[in-house]
């Protein structure tokens, strides 16, 4: 069974960690996954590097460029993941732009994702309108196509997107690109509250989340958090243990 379905039953808030596959070499990937699952994250999102990552800010773009320089491809990442013999205890997600998937073959991608024990896929430049490009193939392999909603998503589209949501909904908390931010705007609370009211699956907030105070601000209105740039940066600077308080702040039982 798809592990994402288990997330629904969880009481605590989820922490989804994003890492760039092959930043520092592909051999780092398993180490990073093991580290994160030990640190208590709920799920891990593995980013595939792309030459033109228009939804990403400088941190993730630079990590992607390092991975590309190291020769990392979608195929190599999936092969590497399929070869793991250690126990993967948390759902694994793949975040990739559409073009590497098209070039690899959508059908083959879906099949190899399954072999690599991938529970869900996030494709930021595949909007709801074009989802059938990948959806049927992924469905056949029981891999969820995670949908994103943003502050600019209209009511009509929000309803439609949520109706088909699988796994969880990725609520983008900034009007902009990925990257650590100081401030999360107040509108975001209204937005996440609205999404959560309507969503049949858990709602996770992502983009710009990098501080405990962001978590405190949104805690009541979401089911979890997705943290990317801050983790990518921490792995690069070998300061990953500094992320642990953030993981704690999210996943620890919380009484108000």
């Amino acid at each position, binding site marked *: 069974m798809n592990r994402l379905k288990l997330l629904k039953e969880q009481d605590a808030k989820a922490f989804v960690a994003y890492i760039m596959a092959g930043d520092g070499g592909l051999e780092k990937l398993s180490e990073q996954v093991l580290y994160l699952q030990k640190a208590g994250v709920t799920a891990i999102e593995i980013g595939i590097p*792309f*030459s*033109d*990552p*228009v*939804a990403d*800010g400088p941190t993730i*773009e630079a990590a992607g460029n390092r991975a*590309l320089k190291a020769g990392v*491809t*979608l*195929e190599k990442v999936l092969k590497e993941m399929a070869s793991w013999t250690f126990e993967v205890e948390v759902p694994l997600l793949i975040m990739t*732009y*559409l*073009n*590497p*998937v*098209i*070039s*690899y073959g959508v*059908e083959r991608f879906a099949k190899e994702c399954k072999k690599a024990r991938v529970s869900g896929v996030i494709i*930021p*430049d*595949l*909007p*709801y*309108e*074009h989802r*059938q*490009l990948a959806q*049927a*193939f992924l*469905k*056949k392999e029981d891999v969820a196509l995670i949908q*994103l*909603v*943003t*502050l*600019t*998503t*209209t009511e*009509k*589209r929000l309803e*439609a997107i949520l*109706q088909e949501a699988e796994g969880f909904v990725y609520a*983008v908390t900034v*009007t*902009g*690109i990925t990257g650590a931010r100081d401030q999360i705007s107040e509108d975001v609370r209204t937005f996440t509250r609205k999404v959560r009211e309507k969503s049949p699956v858990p709602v996770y907030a992502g983009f710009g989340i990098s501080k405990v105070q962001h978590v405190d601000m949104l805690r009541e209105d979401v089911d979890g958090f997705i943290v990317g740039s801050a983790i990518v940066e921490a792995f690069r600077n070998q300061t990953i243990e500094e992320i642990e308080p953030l993981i704690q702040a999210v996943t620890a039982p919380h009484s108000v």
Partner: protein
Amino acid sequence: MTKVKICGLMEERHVEAAKEADAIGFVFAPSKRRVSIERAAELAKHAPVSAEKIGVFVNASIEEIEETVEKVPLTMVQLHGDEPDELVQEIKVPVIQAFSIRGKEDVARLENSVADFVLVDAPGTDYRGGSGHVFDWTLLEEAEIEASRLILAGGLNAENVKAAVHQTGPYMVDVSSGVETDGRKDEVKIQQFIQQAKGDSMQQTADKTGFFGKYGGQFVPETLMKAVKELEDAYMEAKGDPAFKEEYHHYLSEYVGREQPLTFAKRLTEAWGGPKVYLKREDLNHTGAHKINNAIGQALLAMRMGKRKIVAETGAGQHGVATATICALFDLECVIFMGEEDIKRQQLNVFRMKLLGAKVESVTKGSSTLKDAVNEALRYWVTNVEDTHYLIGSALGPHPFPTMVRDFQSVIGEETKRQIVQHEGRLPDTVLACVGGGSNAIGMFYPFLKDESVRLIGVEASGEGLDTEKHAATMTKGTEGVLHGAFMKLLQTDAGQVLEAHSISAGLDYPGIGPEHAYLADIGRVKYESITDQEALEAVVSFSRLEGIIPALESAHAIAQAEKTAKTMGKDEILVICVSGRGDKDMATYAERLEGLS
């Protein structure tokens, strides 16, 4: 929302009419709607990339099915015979298994299917299954089948599909005879059916407009979806408003200086010894190239939408200058992203933009050229989408940009068509234009597309040669992929990473080509050739000396190809070249590369 499949397609225009459907079906089993693999492959070229292509079979062998899947290619297989479970499981793409529902026992068989989807139909007379008769939908109410696996067929038409969807809530509805008139598909019925099945609620978001055959679409991050939809609506509305057209043409004539002449090139004609050569003089536009036709149109639209901030990318700086010019004229705030490499190559244009009051942002990422400037402009747009318009410079990007840019540039072809008839009393035999993203070419070609006697040739840059890595010949060397919001042709690695393009001409230095061009190439309406840096430079010299016009490097590619093409043409024929811009911006390159010229 329920998806729609239009089945049994046999003609291009019906595939086109089914654009807004989620799936199209080809019948490979004996039937009056049967098509060959080759025919289906031809037809599939006219369907959006995101549409499912489904093949219908009856008791075919796995080999036959696999061959068909690969050659068309199909994305799903639909089985109407007595196929065993092993065969169903062996098929690599998702499978739909069809069942004729006469009574409850058929419902039981359907519940046990191992296929990904089950299709329910009334008992058939045609290719076992599709009879066009309606079965009793209420039989399904008790069936143990997830609605998400259910495809409903059998006697559906525009009148009853709404009720059928309401009653059974299927994944997809499938129609064939219900959208036919006298045994042949009917475009109007196809569109009515889709509209009824989808209801008006989601109509606008589900549509597949903005595809040229399989190319195009809106492959952008979710944050931009609202903006591209708003733009789409605003453009459709403006396009239908005579006052908007009038305003646009007012600025074209009073500010840009249109219409531009179609000059007979007497000495060139003599020198080449072939057809009569005419030049469409986009070089005479204010700011020196065709780019301003599009910049005016989009700026007027932005203001109509209440947006007074403009972001744009530029390669050669020609589009940046045109945009900065219009922003000065209309008092709009203007940010231009330009690759660091291009900033070095085009110093003069950078200064022109600054002088005009624009902010020029240097892009140092990736290859620091046009592709990276587009990335940064898109990121800026994502972040400032509520009050900013992205004024894209070529027939690229997510829908509606390729269509809108084409329409604004079509003034080139419209004038040309009128003028050549005035000069010669007939249409030309051949028309050439250079292709970067493809805006001057599509603007020139579009009004001629239906005139089949007119041969159209697009000319891209092969840089240092097609067999080197330094070229920008997307059409010749590219493969299908998604970049900057559209499915098109791209220069890319086997792993789907977009490559840098190379050309002496900064305006042709883009690793993609507009979606409409990719389509026109597929259907053979436009031929694409390529010209090297060296050939273009030689054309700059000969053209300058024969006609007293120093062309832009981009335009020189079209001129160089025209000389080759002219050699194959007779004296009674007519050839038109789009001189997309003048060479002022390229003077530093000319001085350097043509040093020692005597």
